[in-house]
């Protein structure tokens, strides 16, 4: 499971919750373009992310060929995404400082 899988998973979870609230039945075939729409990735890529999430037990596929979160109320995805984002932010901050450090050294050369 990578960061992008979790992003897709979180978007998916929110979409399913919104549809449930609105009492809409949405089939997987409609869901995938909806999840892909704001991201620079293809529809098959979204399907691959969903399969990774299924293998990790984070979502499940029902008999009606719909994806649904495996544990809707447990929000493991929210935790995982938030935590991964904080880890990633730490590394990005480091990389910014490494970049600044190298620029300072370059300026002295």
């Amino acid at each position, binding site marked *: 499971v*990578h*960061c992008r899988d979790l992003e897709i998973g979180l978007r998916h979870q929110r979409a399913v919750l919104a549809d449930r609230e609105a009492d809409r039945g949405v089939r997987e075939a409609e869901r995938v373009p909806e999840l892909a729409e704001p991201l620079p990735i293809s529809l098959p890529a979204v399907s691959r992310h969903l399969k990774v999430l299924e293998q*990790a037990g984070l979502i499940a596929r029902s008999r009606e060929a719909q994806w649904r979160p495996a544990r809707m109320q447990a929000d493991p995805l929210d935790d995982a995404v938030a935590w991964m984002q904080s880890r990633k932010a730490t590394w990005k901050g480091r990389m910014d400082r490494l970049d600044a450090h*190298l620029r300072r050294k370059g300026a002295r050369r």
Partner: protein
Amino acid sequence: MSDVAATDVQILITRIFDAPREEVFRAWTVPDEIAAWFGPEHFDTKDVRIDLRVGGRYELTMVQRDNGAEFPVGYEIVELVEPELLVLRSDPMPEAGMHEPTITRVELHDHGSKTRMTLSDGPYPAGRRHAEAGWNAAFDKLTARVGG
């Protein structure tokens, strides 16, 4: 454990630095240089000790600026190819919920006169609250420890 890949998460970062690979490699492997950037934000880095060889130690202490709290971290160097590859295996930190080592892999590639660095860091357990009660607290501790 066959399900590790499916249930754990990996951080992947790619950056381009306006410096040759040798410079970037030094920034990762010379103590004074590491101390200049490792941070994280609001942290200073001290006591950087590096035994630059495969099997050697890579240790440093992060110091929180506002309260002086110290967070030592240690790694073993598991792969080393100057100036293109550094792979570190972290010491497990069970008190922070990290019972297994994580691998930080830094690859440096020529990118014209610049350097493209890819960094992967993980695996970090995630998304298994049912199996990992208390992960949130562990994550908080770890975040405090690493200053995330």
